[in-house]
């Protein structure tokens, strides 16, 4: 019964946290830009408005299906990630499963955008896939590294191990090299600057989102809100000792997010090839070194 309630409410809870985090990010950046910025619940308004649009232009069934695939993939990932109080599915799936399902939204997006036949969207998708190639390998390596270090592929076990040993056993302490590599990869994964090549309004007019409006964009934003939380949670679970309760969880989320946002706020974006090159030049070697450390 408990599980069913969690299944129903977890997406909602994560969505709420996600919208507030995105709202927080806008506020944070606004302050650096020397302005006040929108209210923190702004993202919720935006999503509501988008979902409430009267007309929604569809580009065919593939377009509709892909958007659902996008959201579905994200929700699927969400259930495999342990959060405080709920790890029912997490015990069945391990990091490798998470790695796998994480790719589904990206594919969904590629399918949907391909259908819109907007060149900006296509460029955006090709960039997204390139970035995927950039950050996924280092991130995957850190997964492997952490799994090897702790001798388990279960995320649940990883969390338990870290929590048992206190701060000293947190992944970031036991293997800082991997921690840094994963952090950089995480920045790319979130699509924050300097790795914001997929959206890049000045270059390709928000790329994949170009042809998305109304409910489509609304769903993408919901997916983004949940996705941000999921991706940060993965990092917290791997390197920051997970969280025992929701308070700790949210604090860790915000601290980690603030760290990433600070970088986002003061840098522009890389060129796509530079971004990938950067990923392969710094996080990838770091990840390899980290893994090598663990092996030897």
């Amino acid at each position, binding site marked *: 019964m408990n599980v069913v309630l969690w299944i129903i409410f977890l997406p909602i809870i994560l969505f709420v946290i996600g919208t507030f985090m995105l709202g927080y990010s806008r506020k944070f950046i606004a302050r650096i830009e020397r302005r006040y*910025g929108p209210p923190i619940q702004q993202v919720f308004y935006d999503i509501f408005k988008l979902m*409430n649009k009267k*007309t929604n232009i569809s580009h065919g069934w593939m377009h509709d299906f892909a958007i659902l695939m996008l959201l579905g993939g994200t929700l699927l990932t969400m259930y495999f990630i342990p959060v405080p109080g709920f790890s029912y599915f997490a015990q069945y799936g391990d990091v490798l499963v998470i790695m796998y399902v994480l790719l589904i939204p990206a594919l969904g997006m590629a399918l949907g955008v391909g259908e819109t036949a907007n060149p900006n969207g296509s460029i955006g998708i090709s960039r997204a896939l390139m970035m995927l190639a950039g950050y996924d390998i280092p991130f995957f390596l850190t997964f492997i590294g952490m799994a090897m270090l702790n001798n388990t592929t279960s995320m649940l076990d990883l969390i338990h191990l870290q929590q048992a040993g206190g701060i000293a056993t947190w992944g970031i302490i036991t293997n800082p090299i991997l921690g840094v590599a994963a952090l950089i990869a995480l920045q790319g994964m979130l699509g924050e600057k300097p790795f914001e090549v997929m959206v890049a309004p000045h270059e390709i007019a928000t790329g994949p989102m170009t042809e998305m409006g109304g409910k489509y964009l609304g769903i993408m934003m919901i997916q983004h809100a949940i996705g941000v939380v999921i991706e940060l949670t993965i990092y917290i679970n791997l390197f920051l000792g997970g969280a025992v309760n929701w308070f700790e969880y949210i604090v860790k989320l915000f601290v980690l997010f603030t760290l990433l946002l600070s970088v986002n706020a003061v840098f522009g974006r890389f060129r796509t090839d530079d971004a990938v090159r950067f990923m392969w030049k710094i996080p990838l070697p770091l990840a390899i070194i980290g893994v090598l450390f663990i092996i030897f």
Partner: protein
Amino acid sequence: MDEKMTQRSVWEKIAAKLSKRSLWMLHYCTGCGAIELPPTMTARFDMERFGINPMVTPRQADILLITGYLSVKTLKRVVLTYEQMQAPKYVVGFGSCTINGGMYWNSYATMKSLDRYIPVETYIAGCMPRPEAIIYSFNELIAKIDRGEANSWKDYYNNYDFYRENQEHTFEGPIETYNDIKADAALFRI
């Protein structure tokens, strides 16, 4: 108008209350009035405070700002852009040029009254309007949405023939559009 207001369901009222807080404007500098948009968007006047954000594609935008005069060439793009926007959508006319031709009243290249081509929600006086006036107009627009009166966009679906006729007169021929407005109107029951 009063009749319509009473007809609004509770849900519509709540929806208006929430969606008025988020208005995305299309980042399209159609004319010189756009020079006051960057100050409005950025730190000095910070319109994001009111939930108004620049958006780069018409699909995502709710507000189309016609920042001043429109040359016929631009007008064509504006019509296409407007049709691509998802309803409800609001058009704000900036300054004299959108009302009665403004400075360019005798120019061969610019249109003179915007509401002949697309329905306009509100106008701002000025040449060009100051950022304060722009924000004030957004505020008015927000209030209008809240009251459920910002329905000019429906006019485009209902009186499409009128607009199309004027457009074709000005473009001196039919234009190719990507949307079938009448079919859309039937599909979305507007």
